[in-house]
């Protein structure tokens, strides 16, 4: 296990992150327009002073090396846009917000997704199956930028029972609509994957044997069917979890939630180089970590692929 983790970190995670940082570093600088281009052209001397302040007067390779040196110490640099903060400060404030929203949405998606998927698989081709799959299809197709204003219109403007936006430190009522929008897509996908693999598992010889032995269905499900049926779901969960906790740009922007998603979109639009780089590294690290966790989880679910 230790060898697995070490190998993961040194042979895979660090080189992958390094490539990611390098590509992002140069790619964002290739984008036309810089962090300090604005409608009002400042005098060249001021522009030079601003650039010097953010080390943009140095050669690109020097900028890259000093960025890596700072990064090695965990310093993501000053934000190019939000002058009162460093990237570390902004990210540290935004991460708990996106995590709280994401984890709640993730747990709900998991429970309802797996539940609906199993129900549909057990009653294959019944009205339950059709309605679950129908709703799931709508869930996948309906974009968040349509659902979010729709829910806000109904629950905040018409019924006046929920706030139309804001976060207020993550109070319960402020979380309901964003969580609903955020988990919608994941419930649908998880339900579809679960149904597919459950149908396959239920048709396999060892389940037939169990049924022939007269075991009750709930016992078969729990004891024999669920684990193998969840394998494809688990492999989807790694990236899905990262996606859901690193914030949804649409949900956060529409509901005014101070999370990573808003930082990311504003960072890209403002050409806030250090912000975009910092968040790319954060998301990259999470992605690698959760993929590793998924690999370990596989082993628990299916001994055949247990890590040695």
């Amino acid at each position: 296990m230790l060898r697995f983790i070490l190998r993961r970190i040194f042979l895979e995670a660090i080189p992958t992150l390094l490539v990611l940082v390098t590509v992002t570093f140069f790619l964002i600088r290739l984008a036309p327009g810089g962090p300090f281009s604005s409608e009002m052209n400042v005098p060249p001397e001021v522009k030079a002073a601003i650039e010097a302040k953010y080390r943009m007067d140095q050669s690109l390779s020097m900028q890259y090396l000093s960025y890596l040196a700072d990064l090695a110490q965990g310093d993501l640099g000053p934000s190019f846009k939000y002058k009162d903060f460093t990237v570390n400060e902004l990210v540290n404030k935004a991460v708990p917000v996106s995590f709280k929203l994401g984890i709640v949405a993730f747990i709900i998606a998991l429970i309802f997704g797996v539940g609906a998927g199993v129900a549909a698989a057990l009653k294959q081709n019944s009205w339950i199956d059709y309605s679950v799959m129908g709703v799931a299809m709508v869930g996948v197709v309906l974009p968040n930028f349509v659902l979010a204003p729709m829910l806000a219109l109904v629950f905040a403007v018409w019924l006046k029972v929920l706030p139309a936006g804001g976060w207020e430190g993550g109070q319960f009522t402020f979380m309901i609509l964003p969580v609903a929008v955020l988990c919608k897509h994941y419930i649908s996908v998880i339900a579809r994957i679960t149904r597919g693999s459950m149908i396959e598992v239920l048709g396999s010889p060892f389940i037939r044997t169990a049924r022939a032995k007269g075991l009750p269905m709930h016992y078969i499900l729990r004891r024999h069917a669920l684990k193998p049926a969840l394998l494809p779901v688990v492999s989807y969960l790694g990236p899905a979890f990262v996606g859901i906790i690193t914030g949804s740009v649409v949900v956060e922007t529409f509901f005014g939630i101070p999370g990573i998603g808003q930082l990311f979109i504003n960072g890209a639009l403002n050409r806030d180089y250090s912000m975009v780089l910092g968040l790319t590294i954060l998301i990259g690290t999470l992605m690698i970590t959760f993929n590793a966790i998924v690999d370990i989880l596989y082993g628990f679910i299916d001994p055949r692929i247990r890590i040695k």
Partner: protein
Amino acid sequence: MRYLFTISVAALALTFNCQAAEVPPGTKLHATQHIVIGNGAEPATLDPGRVQGRPESNLTVELFEGLVSQDANGKVIGGVAEKWESKEGGKVWLFTLRKNAKWSDGSPVTAGDFEYGFKRMVDPKFASDYSWYLGKASNVINGTAIVEGKKPPSELGVKALNDTTLQFTLEKPVAYLVSTLIHGSLMPIPRKVVEKFGDKWTDPANIVGNGPFKLSERVVNERIVMVRNPHYWNNAKTVIEQLTVLPINNQSAEYQRYRANAIDVTADGGVPSEQVAQIRKEVPNELTLWPQLGTYYYTFNVKVKPFDDVRVRRALSLAINRDVITQQILSTGETSAYSMTPGIADGYKAIRHDWEAQTQAQRDLEAKKLLADAGYGPGKPLKFPLLYNTNEQHKKIALAVASMWKRVGPVEVELVNQEWKTFLDTRNRGDYAVTRGAWIADYNEASTMIDLFHSKHGSNDGKYNNPAYDEVIDKAKITLDPAERMKLYQDAERILAQDFPAAFMYHYSNRRMIKPWVKGYGKNPQGRIQARDLYIIAH
């Protein structure tokens, strides 16, 4: 000298104007005076010296107070300065500060705090976006030389003679100096606090301001909460207890929260254009529109063919039917523009060009002739790209204008839209034929608008260069008599109407949604709404 005397007297008179919420007697106020206002975007900073634009100055004017301020209708009134006078023919100005002006920690606001703040801002090392302002707009002596690194910041022509007297020395006499000083960056700065906390001085825990409100909470991308500052010299006249500012840049999201009664006043421009018809039907009285000091136009790149030919520029400008744009496409209080400077600019009267009086059919006829004279006709179409930043409204206008141009000749326009920063980059490089442009006033005086086409102006994107024009502008800026100055500005507009460096299309409007229980706001042409002027009636 006569008019200089008038200026000082007028200034003294101004200070007696209202500078706080004026609640008419008998008004029943709401029990909780909390107000929520949209801001359009997250401010890049709360440090006045680093202000970049509206999202920041909207807040600095609540947290701080400059020498002068604006009343609800945008009129310049005394702020920390009680009165001011000019000497030496308008080259030296003395501001007398009120003795009861205090910082939010209770210490007095002194002339030295202004001197420190202004010198900090022009220091090139401080790298402020508005470092050029004191030198270029206010004409403070050495302002520009300091920014260019040719002189140390200590040489700036701003000096505290004692705790309550601040002296400005200008490069040349400027009659409208006081108007320029309303800018959101020109605030006193609490030196001790800045030196103690460095860049962290704007944190809610550290910040000390001298405005009607003080910062109590800041969550980036969610909200900024301010409460009234008991040490503000005019605190007795403030009615609002708590001001919450929301940085929502999605207009329909902001409007949704407005409808849910979570916002009382939307950001400036905070009226989603695609919902205007519905708003007019449902809440017409809350849609609040008034003219803005700003102009929307298409700039011609005079350095490239065929736009070096004034006939082409004139033809294209004449062929634009402004009324269709303002009344049918926009319809939210914008007015058709034929000149750069809006007629509402303080002390300015717009002139009417000959072609402005013509009907569109007559203009089209002349445009046709001009294009034909310039050599465009069947077999030789006028082809060029039209650049604008990605936005539905800009697209609608571009499509309409392209079709108007098509009516007067074989004009084939290719619409090119680019994301904002990319667009700025392309435009700055001069890599365009015709581009969308817009300019919003920094202060309420014609020079802030008309100066844009001066060959030395940093944002003269079309690189228009007419020495005669520069001369008129330079002369206007140092002309002290307001009537004479206005005539010069009008002359400048006449030159623009001959040379057509740009096709002016409309003057902006201020657009906001305001709840019926919010009172006390006026029609500030710069769109500023300050919470110290507001109050909420019982509802």
